[in-house]
C-alpha cells in the first residue's frame, strides 16, 4: 500500500476535472520541455474559454498552438508570442486576449503563486506599458511595481524522469518553467519519459519534490526542434 503513488495509466484520466473557463499553467520554453501529450489531451477534451499561462503559446502547429485551432484559449499570459501565425491572426482579430508579461516576472509570478506569496515588487517594467495600473513603491531610492502572483486550476509539466512518488528530474534546458509550474497548480499533472521505483533517484538530485505532484504519467515525445543550428565538426 502506498498513498504516495501518483502514477496513472492513461492520458484520458490525466485531466479529469478540467472544465471550461479554467486556468492552465504550462511548462516549456519554445518547443523545449513542453508537455506535448497533455496539451493534446486538452485538445481532445475540447475544454473552451481557457486562460493559459506559459512563456510562449507554441509556434506554428507546435505545442500550445494546437489549442488555437478550435479556439479553446480565451486569454493567453505569455512573454513572447512570435512565430505563430494562427495566434497573430486571433490576436489581431480580437479573438484572444493577450497579457504580455516579462519573462522573469512571469517566472516569479508562478514561483510566488506556488509558494503562497500573493504579490511582489520588481523593478522590471517600471515606466513601461507593463506598469500601467500597477502600484508603484520606492525602496532605497529605486521605483518598483507590484506584480500579482499566478496559480492555476491545472498545472501541466514535462519532466525527464520520475519515481512513482512524483519526485522529478528534468533534463538540460527542458527544465525552464517546469519546476515553478509544478508548484502552482491546484492539480499538477506531470508527464515523463521514464518512471522508476522510489529510491532509484538520488534524493540529492531531485529537482521537484513529489509533494507538488498529483498525477504522473509516462509518455513518448516528439521533441521538435525550432532552430536546428549545427557546426561542422
Amino acid at each position: 500500500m502506498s498513498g504516495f503513488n501518483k502514477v496513472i495509466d492513461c492520458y484520458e484520466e490525466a485531466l479529469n476535472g478540467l472544465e471550461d473557463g479554467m486556468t492552465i499553467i504550462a511548462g516549456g520554453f519554445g518547443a523545449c520541455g513542453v508537455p506535448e501529450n497533455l496539451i493534446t489531451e486538452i485538445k481532445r477534451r475540447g475544454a473552451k474559454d481557457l486562460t493559459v499561462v506559459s512563456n510562449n503559446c507554441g509556434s506554428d502547429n507546435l505545442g500550445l498552438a494546437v489549442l488555437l485551432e478550435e479556439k479553446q484559449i480565451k486569454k493567453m499570459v505569455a512573454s513572447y508570442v512570435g512565430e505563430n501565425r494562427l495566434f497573430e491572426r486571433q490576436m489581431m482579430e480580437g479573438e484572444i486576449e493577450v497579457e504580455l508579461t516579462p519573462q522573469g516576472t512571469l517566472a516569479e509570478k508562478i514561483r510566488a503563486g506556488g509558494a503562497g506569496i500573493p504579490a511582489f515588487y520588481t523593478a522590471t517594467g517600471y515606466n513601461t506599458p507593463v506598469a500601467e495600473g500597477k502600484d508603484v513603491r520606492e525602496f532605497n531610492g529605486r521605483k518598483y511595481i507590484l506584480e500579482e502572483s499566478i496559480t492555476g486550476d491545472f498545472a501541466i509539466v514535462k519532466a525527464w524522469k520520475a519515481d512513482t512518488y512524483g519526485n522529478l528530474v528534468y533534463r538540460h534546458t527542458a527544465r525552464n518553467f517546469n519546476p515553478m509550474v509544478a508548484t502552482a497548480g491546484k492539480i499538477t499533472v506531470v508527464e515523463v519519459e521514464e518512471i522508476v521505483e522510489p529510491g532509484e533517484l538520488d534524493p540529492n538530485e531531485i529537482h521537484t519534490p513529489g509533494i507538488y505532484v498529483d498525477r504522473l504519467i509516462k509518455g513518448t515525445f516528439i521533441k521538435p526542434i525550432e532552430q536546428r543550428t549545427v557546426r561542422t565538426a
Partner: protein
Amino acid sequence: MALSREQLAMRVAQELQDGYYVNLGIGIPTLVANYVPEGMDVMLQSENGLLGMGPFPTEREVDADLINAGKQTVTAIKGASIFSSADSFAMIRGGHVDLTVLGAFEVDVLGNIASYMIPGKLIKGMGGAMDLVAGADNIIVTMTHASKHGESKLLQKCSLPLTGAGCIKKVVTDLAYMEIAEGKFWLKERAPGVSVDDIVKLTAGELVVPEVVPEMEF
C-alpha cells in the same frame, strides 16, 4: 565606412573582461561570442536556464533538450550549470550578470530604451528584455545609428513604448561609440573613416562632441 555587423560585435567584445558572466541578446549581440579575446574566459548566460553556453552542436551532438533563448540548438561548456527560469531571472534581476548586450529600436539621452514593440505593427512580446535592462548595471546597446530611411535612432526622447527607463549608459552603433550621462550623449569614438559631421547629422538627441574623437581600433 560604417561598421559591418561583425565589426560591431568586435568592438563590443573589447568591453569583455576575464571572468565576466555575460548575457547576449539575439542578433548582432550573439556574434560577440565569436570575438572573445584569446586567453580570456567569459561565461555566457542564456535566460532560458543555461550558464556556460557553448558553440552550436555538431550534427551528431544535436539535442532537442538543449537550446538557447533564441531556441537554437547549442552545447554546454565544461563547467556549465543548468537551472530553472526563476533562478535564471534571479541572476539577472539580482544584478549578478556582469554584462548584458542587446539590440534596440531607439535609445534616448536619458538612457531610456525601446526595443520590443512598434504600435500598429505586429506585437511579439518582450521576452526577457525588460528584466535584463532592469537588472543589469552594465548594459551595452548595439544597433545601427539610423534606420534604412536615415532616421536617427538616438533621440532626445524615445517615441516607442519603453522596454526600460534610465538604464542605458553605453551604445555602440555602426558609426560611433557613445556614453550616456547627465541627459546627453557623449561621443567617445567614431568608426574608421566616419566623420564627426556624419555622426552629428544622424544623432537627433543632444550630443557632446569633444575636440578630438579617436577612431575605433580593432
